[in-house]
């Protein structure tokens, strides 16, 4: 089914899907992934589930929004949406992004250049609803009709018609989570219209005004982080216990005595990891400890609640939640009187701390914040650690996390390290600020309810998986072991899911991990291989 979806259709025929999408829509992959029958089928929403939750967009359900009790409840939410729509355009209610939002409201010339830049639209075989401009156009028409003066009488003649109703807002809500906020579309726009920002602002509207947000990001993300100290559920005692285990494990593995310092006052560096690393990729915090100790850096972790988890999911959906977590991070640094905060290998943490939080971290709260990538570059080229790059003599490619590379412009430090330490380093095409998102950006990687994981990994990850395979096309067989370096927890989660979905470790010998693991693997003092081609 490939019928066209027009913008005004979003508010019509609420009991039908606006579009239908499935694995059959996806383009080809190189062998041995070229047989459509080998592509795993997507889970379908069963009738019982569809009775309970809203499923009216594309047959995929990321958000499990409960069906309304009655028409009055529908009306209540539509009213709240309208109130939020107005607030987005008011300086007193949108202190973060009003200016760029207004520019993106007024200046789109509908040239559709951005469509080709979007990996979701491309992978879907060109579904209208996934155009970066589709969501934005819905928003523009709603603003012109329902917010601007005389909109109800004239807007439809100038900007096109649209109805604001329960169907419109529920489809739009779900549609906001079919975009990874990678902002490749914004980069492609000849006049700088930012469709990614519009999606972000809509997510924010839903969260701040209607109380609608993915439970993985809000209830089990930000709220859990505020309650126990981490979105993973680790309280301070558990995180210290886990790091002690990692220290022992790394000592055993490398023969180097690994010790993680805690709560050291006046340290040069407060390192804040994404806490997911501790649970899922312990070799990453372990490798950081080995490198920082070997380089003689005066560093520490914090065991303060939230001070050991750099996650700030509010970046993806809610300015208030973003601000609450950002303040906690800075309070931790102030309490320890450290010189600066270094962000671990986590993309959204970089963006939240390095730029967006600037709006609130003024005056004496403006503590220096730096990417781990620049610190690692200084260390690697300082001569303090001896390396033997021949230990990394296997094909390595680099995934550029959107938030670190396209959105912050940190492009070269990680590359200079890889060119030095990995003799077979090769770029993906395109790369750097033009790179494609992993498909799990903006929190999607941690969302997998109902059949959403199928969509995220299969459709969302299609372009990235093809890029990875192409980068290793000279040695495709499983006998040659290969490494995708992805210095971001969220991207690693998505790339892990992609590689497992296609059994790419068995079929192509591809594993994945961060940057620090490659650095440690090349250290002369580390006698045993640090990287293992095992499922992890």
């Amino acid at each position, binding site marked *: 089914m490939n019928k066209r979806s027009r913008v005004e259709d979003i508010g019509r025929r609420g009991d039908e899907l606006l579009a239908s999408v499935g694995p059959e829509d996806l383009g080809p992959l190189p062998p041995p992934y070229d047989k459509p029958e080998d592509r795993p089928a997507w889970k379908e929403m069963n009738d019982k589930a569809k009775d309970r939750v809203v499923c009216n967009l594309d047959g995929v359900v990321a958000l499990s929004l409960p069906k309304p009790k009655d028409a009055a409840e529908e009306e209540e939410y539509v009213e709240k949406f309208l109130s939020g729509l107005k607030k987005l355009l008011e300086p007193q209610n949108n202190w973060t992004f009003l200016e760029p939002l207004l520019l993106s409201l007024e200046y789109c010339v509908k040239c559709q250049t951005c469509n080709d830049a979007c990996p979701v639209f491309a992978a879907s075989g060109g579904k209208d609803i996934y155009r970066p401009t589709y969501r934005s156009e819905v928003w523009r028409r709603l603003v012109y009709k329902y917010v601007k003066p005389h909109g109800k009488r004239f807007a439809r003649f100038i900007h096109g018609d649209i109805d604001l109703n329960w169907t419109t807002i529920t489809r739009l809500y779900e549609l906001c989570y079919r975009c990874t906020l990678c902002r490749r579309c914004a980069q492609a726009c000849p006049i700088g219209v930012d469709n990614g920002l519009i999606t972000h602002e809509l997510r924010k509207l839903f969260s701040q005004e209607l109380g609608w947000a993915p439970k993985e990001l809000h209830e089990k993300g930000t709220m859990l982080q505020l309650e126990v100290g981490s979105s993973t559920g680790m309280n301070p005692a558990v995180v210290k216990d886990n790091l002690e285990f990692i220290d022992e494990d790394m000592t055993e593995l490398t023969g180097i005595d690994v010790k993680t310092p805690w709560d050291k006052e006046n340290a040069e560096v407060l390192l804040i990891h994404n806490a997911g690393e501790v*649970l899922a990729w312990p070799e990453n915090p372990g490798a950081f400890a080995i490198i920082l100790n070997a380089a003689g850096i005066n560093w520490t972790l914090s065991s303060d609640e939230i001070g050991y988890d750099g996650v700030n999911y509010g970046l993806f959906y809610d300015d208030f939640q973003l601000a609450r977590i950002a303040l906690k991070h800075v309070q931790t640094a102030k309490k320890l009187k450290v010189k600066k905060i270094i962000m671990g290998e986590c993309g959204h943490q970089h963006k939240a701390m390095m730029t967006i939080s600037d709006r609130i971290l003024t005056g004496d709260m403006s503590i220096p914040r730096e990417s781990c990538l620049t610190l690692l570059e200084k260390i690697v080229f300082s001569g303090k650690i001896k390396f033997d790059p021949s230990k990394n003599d296997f094909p390595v490619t680099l995934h550029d996390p959107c938030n670190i590379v396209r959105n912050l412009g940190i492009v070269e430090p990680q590359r200079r390290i890889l060119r030095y330490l990995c003799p077979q380093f090769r770029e993906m095409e395109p790369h750097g600020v033009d790179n494609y998102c992993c498909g799990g950006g903006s929190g999607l990687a941690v969302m997998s309810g109902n059949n959403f994981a199928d969509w995220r990994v299969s459709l969302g990850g299609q372009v990235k998986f093809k890029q990875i395979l192409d980068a290793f096309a000279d040695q495709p067989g499983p006998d040659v072991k290969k490494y995708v370096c992805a210095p971001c927890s969220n991207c690693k*989660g998505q790339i892990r899911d992609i590689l497992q979905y296609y059994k790419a470790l068995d079929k192509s010998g591809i594993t994945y991990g961060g940057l620090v693991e490659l650095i440690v693997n090349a250290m002369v003092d580390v006698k045993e291989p640090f990287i293992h081609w095992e499922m992890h």
Partner: protein
Amino acid sequence: MDTKELGGKQVEVDEDGFIQDPSAWDEAVAADLAKTEGVENLTEDHWKVVNYLREYYLEYNMAPMIRKLCKSTGFKLKEIYDLFPSGPAKGACKVAGLPKPTGCV
């Protein structure tokens, strides 16, 4: 919230089939949860994983590090996937009656 018949009783589950009330868990519930994960019979090896997860959860109120699970049970991650095809988080934790793991894991 959906309910499902597990171990001969109605138990609340989330959209991915994780039970919501950890105290509703017993061995019969685990056996039925395993079937939803494509595991027809829970062997001694399955129980080794499930029991470790359960004990850790009751003490710390969350799932353990995957590496701790592997080290304590002696299984490699691949072997855990062989036992629970959806893996330690979505498969083994579900059978052990833990909530779905949270955060960037």
